[in-house]
């Protein structure tokens, strides 16, 4: 960009013109170096927008300041991607947040004047994001794991025109599903077990020119970023090749729970106590013939299925969770026996039968119609013998009882086949697991775990909100699931991988700041190699070079700014969000003299939750103190302590930070941003005392988007507090 040319636009609509002296605001904008300042009665109208467009085209305006409604409103109208833009929130932020009436006029006008100064200062420090030159468009995808999830991800990506490489560590595709006799029905009327379809998928893959399959192969190194992942693929024979991929789907599935940990259920004591997966192999081997028990080859005449074996239990060695697939799997397996031999006694012992949805409940009913017995009972033990004795508590009759049977099938669960958790607390891992991805990342070799080893996203509305950009987990490694869900999941993950590769090629951020073209810029000369940015980045986006300088990887970055907040020497910034864009806003807030008795409170509010809550409070007519000045921030993690100390030194009487919930149920979409801000702030007390300031002058709060009443109250209580403890002694 050659020459910067600034313009300011002040809307007088929606009551702004009636409530505020806009002529004065216009003068302030001019004084704040806006070369042209225009007022418009309805800036968001076609006429208003055209006026701005024409200034951009004809007057070569490069930076615009729009003073109108909240930056969350009229986004489509005020859309000028070719220039730098800031917005002063005069509607929600000022006139709707303040009572009307003469006695309030002065404070309200001062608020508006400051927001104009702030927005002008902000835009003066901004530049429209420019491509870094780092963008690479590589469309080939890597799918790790050749089970049903991985195969589905590959086939679905290929069907959209993308080339895929499947890496499978074993010698064949198909995974656990290939060992199964049949699968739970996926088509109406959901009554009979279906063909697994695995053989057909393997054929389809072998015939698909877009899909490459590498068997007996593991990943020995993954470096780079979305759009340019360089992956070392090592075969069993010892040869290694390096291939480049745009994005990765991790479909490494599950390991069956080790039933040897269930001796009380007879496993290992009698060959006729087997797991569900072992039964599948047994049935598959019969090739449609009668199902015979392992011990003596006798045709099974009675079978008991023990649900939740080693699951949903707090006992050591058991799985605390429900694996989700076992109830329908046991019904399916009971039907294997019924199909072969309708007279076979099949009993499912369960505590809650979990067959959700249409297909689940229909299939449950089909089992009942075929005389499968379902008993609500808690199994206490299985006694081995010629005939097995199952001891259980009948929960309906409320009595301890037994049943005899030829075969016992334990419905054991899924253990995720994930790599080591980069954030596992030291000493918490007893048996080390080998890495799957071998990521060359500063923050560990594999995807972070959420719970119980699953690498799920923490967000209900965003199941693919991964913590390693461009790497998407799918299937039972993400959370326990059945084959149907795993196939949907694989397809969803494939879409996200395609999207990550495409957008990396354009330099665009991934969710939640999708489309953002800015990225962290780093001034190496000033860096002290303190490593805070590399340690704190929630997405493991920053590596370190041999001299311990940070190495930013643009397409791994989610643009939260946590690195910027971490940097004590202010050398990390984004083009449109930086130490300067916020620092200058704070500097340009006019600080009244001490004798004016007008405190100033700086509020830094998370743009996703706290800021909308304040907007909605304004829409609801809830008023805030005229002394507050609110600055939206991308995330509390991006807040630099410099902003806080600078503002206190400048005479601010109070500083409030509002961010998202930070504990294990965190709502911060940058994972640790809010938590990190709280940690940083906990150390500010000493600084404040060093400045002879009361520690209460700086506060950090968890604020949810629903805190429509509470968010303004926090501000007003700070104003009351300042009323009590007095103005800052640091005012001039």
């Amino acid at each position, binding site marked *: 960009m050659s020459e910067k040319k600034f313009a300011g636009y002040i809307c007088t*609509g*929606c009551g702004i013109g009636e409530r505020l002296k806009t002529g004065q605001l216009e003068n302030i904008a001019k004084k704040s170096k806006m070369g042209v300042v225009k007022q418009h009665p*309805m800036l*968001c*109208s076609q006429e208003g927008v055209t006026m701005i467009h024409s200034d951009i085209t004809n007057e070569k305006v490069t930076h615009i300041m729009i003073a109108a409604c909240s930056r*969350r*409103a*009229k*986004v489509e109208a005020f859309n000028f991607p070719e220039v730098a833009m800031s917005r002063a929130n005069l509607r929600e932020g000022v006139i709707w947040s303040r009572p009307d009436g003469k006695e309030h006029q002065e404070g309200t006008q001062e608020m508006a004047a400051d927001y104009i100064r702030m927005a002008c200062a902000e835009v003066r420090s901004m530049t429209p994001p420019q491509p870094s030159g780092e963008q690479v468009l590589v*469309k*080939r995808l890597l799918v790790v794991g050749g089970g049903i999830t991985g195969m589905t991800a590959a086939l*679905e*990506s290929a069907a*959209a*025109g*993308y080339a895929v490489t499947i890496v499978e560590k074993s010698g064949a595709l198909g995974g656990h599903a290939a060992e199964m006799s049949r699968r739970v029905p996926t088509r*109406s*009327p959901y009554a009979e077990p279906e063909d697994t379809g695995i053989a057909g998928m393997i054929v389809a893959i072998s015939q698909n020119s877009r899909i490459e399959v590498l068997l007996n192969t593991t990943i020995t190194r993954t470096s780079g970023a979305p759009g340019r992942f360089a992956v070392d693929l090592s075969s069993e024979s010892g040869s290694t090749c390096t291939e480049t991929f745009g994005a990765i789907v991790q479909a490494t599935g599950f390991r069956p729970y080790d039933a040897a940990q269930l001796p009380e259920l007879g496993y290992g004591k009698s060959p006729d106590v087997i797991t569900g997966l072992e039964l599948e192999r047994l049935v598959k081997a019969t090739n449609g013939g009668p199902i015979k028990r392992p011990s003596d080859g006798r045709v099974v005449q009675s079978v008991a299925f023990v649900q939740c074996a080693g699951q*949903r239990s707090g006992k050591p060695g058991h799985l*605390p*969770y*429900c694996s*989700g697939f076992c109830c329908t799997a046991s019904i399916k397996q009971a039907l294997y026996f019924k199909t072969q031999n309708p007279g076979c006694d099949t009993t499912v012992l369960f505590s*809650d039968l979990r067959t*959700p*949805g*249409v297909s*689940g*409940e*229909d299939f449950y*009913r089909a089992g009942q119609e075929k005389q499968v017995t379902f008993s609500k009972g808690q199994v206490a033990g299985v006694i081995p013998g010629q005939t097995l004795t199952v001891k259980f508590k009948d*929960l309906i009759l409320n009595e301890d009882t037994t049943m005899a049977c030829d075969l016992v099938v334990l419905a054991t669960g899924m253990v995720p086949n994930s790599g080591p958790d980069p954030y596992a607390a030291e000493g918490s891992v007893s048996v080390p697991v080998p890495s799957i991805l071998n990521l060359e990342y500063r923050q560990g070799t594999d995807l972070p775990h959420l*719970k119980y080893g699953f690498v799920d996203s*923490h967000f*209900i*509305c965003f*199941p*693919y909100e991964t913590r390693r950009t461009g790497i998407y987990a799918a299937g039972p490694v993400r*959370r326990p699931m059945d084959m149907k869900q795993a196939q*949907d999941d694989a*397809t*969803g993950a*494939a*879409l996200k991988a395609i*999207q990550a590769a*495409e957008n990396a090629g354009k330099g665009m951020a991934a969710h*939640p700041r*999708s*489309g953002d073209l800015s990225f962290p810029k780093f001034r190496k000369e000033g860096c002290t190699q303190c490593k805070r940015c590399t340690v704190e980045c929630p997405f493991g986006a920053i590596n370190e070079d041999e001299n311990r300088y940070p190495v930013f990887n643009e397409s791994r970055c989610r643009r939260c700014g946590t690195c910027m907040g971490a940097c004590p020497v202010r050398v990390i910034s984004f083009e449109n969000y930086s130490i300067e864009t916020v620092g200058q806003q704070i500097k340009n807030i006019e600080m009244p003299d001490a004798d004016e008795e007008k405190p100033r409170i700086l509020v830094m509010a998370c743009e*996703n939750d706290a800021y*909308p809550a304040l907007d*909605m409070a304004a*829409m609801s007519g809830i008023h805030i103190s005229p002394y507050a000045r609110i600055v939206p921030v991308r995330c509390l993690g991006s807040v630099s302590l410099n902003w806080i100390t600078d503002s206190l030194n400048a005479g601010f009487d109070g500083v409030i930070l509002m961010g998202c*919930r930070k504990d294990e*149920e965190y*709502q911060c979409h940058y994972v640790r941003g809010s938590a990190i801000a709280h940690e940083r702030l906990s150390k500010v007390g000493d600084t404040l005392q060093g400045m002879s300031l009361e520690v209460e002058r700086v506060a950090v709060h968890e604020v*949810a*988007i*629903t805190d*429509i009443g509470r968010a303004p109250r926090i501000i007003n209580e700070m104003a009351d507090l300042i009323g009590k403890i007095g103005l800052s002694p640091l005012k001039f």
Partner: protein
Amino acid sequence: MTEVIATNETILVVGGGISGMTAALEAAETGKRVVLVEKRPYLGGRVSQLYRYFPKLCFPTCGLEINQRRAKMNPNLTILTMAEVTDISGQAGDYTATVKLAPRFVKDHCTACGACGEAVTQKFDNEFDYGLSKRKGAYLPHRMAHPQRYVIDPRIIGTEEGEKAKAACKYNAVDLDMQEESIQFKAGAVIWATGWQPYDANKIQPYGYDRIKNVITSVEFERLCDPTGPTGGKLVRPSDGREAKRVAFIQCAGSRDRNHLLHCSRICCMATLKQTTYVTEAWGNTADVSVYYIDIRAIDRFEDFYAKVQANPQVKFIKSKVASIVEDRGTGNPVLHGVDTEGYRRYADAHDLVVLAVGMQPSVDADRFPVQIRLNSEGFIEAAPENGGVFAAGCASDALDVNRAVQHATAAALRAIQVVNRVAGVEG
């Protein structure tokens, strides 16, 4: 006349709830042109009416804010609200959609300044609160409604109220003469994401929803507990505004039942477990919650949440299909009758409030589908080759929770992209 620019490389998404929004945004963020058609005046669908999500107890509006920001920023996405697809003809890669647009009586340039809402006085049942509160005839459906534009209730058109709304608007955005229109445009693939509706509780006669004021549905209970809801989040019962501390939840109300919905609606167990926390959070150890259930289906990691609720002494679980509810005339208390199947105890238990965990049924009746599609016996869309380039997303395909619906919708976006990429001849 509303103009929509679309080609046979455009993806049409029908339904703007969480599934439709997700499918539309994921496709648009992969660079595809998308037209999103929503029947309501705003996006977000049923999740926008929920107070919290299970199992995190976080707020649906948090995700809605992100999704709406994505929608506002994305140049590939066109949103049509108050719009319904009436016909889809053609085949995969070459569909023509006909969309009926109901008049909003407010033009696109509305600033949501609120003047029309202040000018009118007449009030109507607020659909956003399932009729538990009133709203005006010129209204913003809720505080986060996107598009952020007012709506004029057709019932004030031709009345003095309508004229008041028009006169109040400085920006000439109120258009009382706006007419219904029907438009046509092309699409290569269609994502059907029309979601679900709560099963009509009036049909479960023994539970007296239509007769007993203190018997409400689970979706109404969400509004009742929401701080932005009809009672400001105060947990009081409808009949007399008294605090509701003894609350019963009846599971499978109209689900897993030959007389009603055959299927299990999947979400109700977890939704109830979540709702028990609203009661225990409001009243602490004076809360008295009973859950009447057949099976508690807290699958996969949800088990943790079930364990947490079970550990709360204020919540008891009774394995029983409640036989009937009778109102105690003196107190207004609903009295539940039935047998506890664990131990065969007969009960007649009085509660302050009863919440029916009503099931999910598809929003679109089988005979009203504007396109050839394969439905299962419960009316949900089944994936099938004969569906061509039409793909279900979310609860149009099955009873799903939000997480699974979003997962499913993301997958649907890829299936639609496969079709339009074939049309465009895209090679990866």
